[in-house]
């Protein structure tokens, strides 16, 4: 059926919106959908070929109808593909803003998968959930974001979007994070210790999961 692959893609996109992580890129579906578009385009030109450019829709309503359906299907497929990629790139951008290093994580996940799935085909094990194009995109987006952020160094654009209540907060250290420099001297963050520090100094570490904010 026309549009089946595209519909599956949209369903994937819909599901992606509700997920925390990014599911695997549907390379196969994307390829099928683009192939369908190409086939439809070929069909259209085949149908129109005998008319040699002098096609009159009102004299041949049946042909006009099939051409129209083909056209609509192509456009629909395009929209679905765009929507699918947009949802994924939005998700990636969101991760970029929250300061996660996606490419690094992906590689780690790939390595882990490789180790565990040694019995399975190694190809499936180290497959990243991003397509190569997406990796390239996110690399460039990260650079661009850094450039834009650079103009607002005083503000720290990627900082917390919660209104600040207190200047100082209690934090607990979840993972060893080494020594950090603050205005009040250096603090060594060792696991399970607790500190009363300036929120601005440790925001990054909270976002990265090294520290936990205690309320």
């Amino acid at each position, binding site marked *: 059926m026309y549009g089946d692959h595209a519909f599956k893609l949209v369903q994937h996109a819909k599901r992606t919106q509700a997920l925390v992580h990014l599911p695997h890129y549907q390379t196969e579906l*994307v390829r099928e959908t683009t192939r369908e578009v190409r086939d439809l385009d070929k069909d259209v030109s085949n149908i129109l070929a005998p008319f040699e450019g002098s096609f009159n829709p009102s004299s041949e309503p049946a042909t006009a109808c099939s051409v129209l359906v083909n056209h609509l299907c192509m*456009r629909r497929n395009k929209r679905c593909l765009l929507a699918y990629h947009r949802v994924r790139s939005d998700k990636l951008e969101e991760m970029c803003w929250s300061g996660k290093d996606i490419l690094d994580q992906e590689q780690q996940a790939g390595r882990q998968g490789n180790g565990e799935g040694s019995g399975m085909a190694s190809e499936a094990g180290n497959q990243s959930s991003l397509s190569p194009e997406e990796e390239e*995109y996110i690399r460039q987006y990260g650079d661009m974001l850094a450039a834009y952020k650079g*103009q607002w160094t005083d503000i720290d*654009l990627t900082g917390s979007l919660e209104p600040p209540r207190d*200047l100082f907060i209690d934090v607990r250290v979840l993972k060893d994070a080494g020594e950090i420099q603050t205005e009040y001297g250096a603090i060594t963050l060792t696991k399970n210790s607790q500190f009363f520090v300036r929120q601005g100094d440790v925001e990054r570490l909270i976002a990265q999961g090294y520290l936990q904010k205690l309320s």
Partner: protein
Amino acid sequence: MDIDDILAEVDSHAVPPATRDLQELTRAWVTERSAPEILPWPDMLMERILERLRRQIELVEEQTGNTDPKANFRLIIIQTELERFKFLVRSFLRARIAKIDAHALHHLTDPSTKARLSPSELQYATAHTSLLHAHYHSSFLSQFPTSLQRMDDTAGGISMVEGPDVDKAVFVRALKDVEEPVYVEGTDTAFDMRRGDVVVVRWSAVREVVMAGDAELI
């Protein structure tokens, strides 16, 4: 738009310029967050605020070595204030970026909305759209028939470029009596806005009033 006149009417007693800037920033922030479309970049206001932020950061850095408890206490207050200001500016910028990203092509093609972006936002939007296009292109568009590769098709009478929904409902408070009654387009509803009135209405109906500074979004 002469904001000073309006503010003078809103608050009859004189306000120091610093407080007024804060008020303006807060208002700009609230409006930006609730309005469906992007609003003009408050050039002068942002410049003043950034300048003050920079001065305060310098002050904090200078005073850090001071061990006098009194100075220390003052420093904490300044820093708290600084954090709040930073939050306002950050949230304001992020709200704008979110809108730009949602309708990037619309913002770049429509001259009136394009003029509302700040130079750096414009740069960001342009770079982001071209990145996205390159991404789409390498992912699947390049294998499409040429006639379908464009991103701004208008075939079938429907443009591919989507704009924000200007008919979204917003809450508006009138800051002063609006002389002309407000008409809601497409309906025969018209109403007067007196100072202090709060109404829920389509954004497109009150856009002019809000932009003129006669009303604020809440």
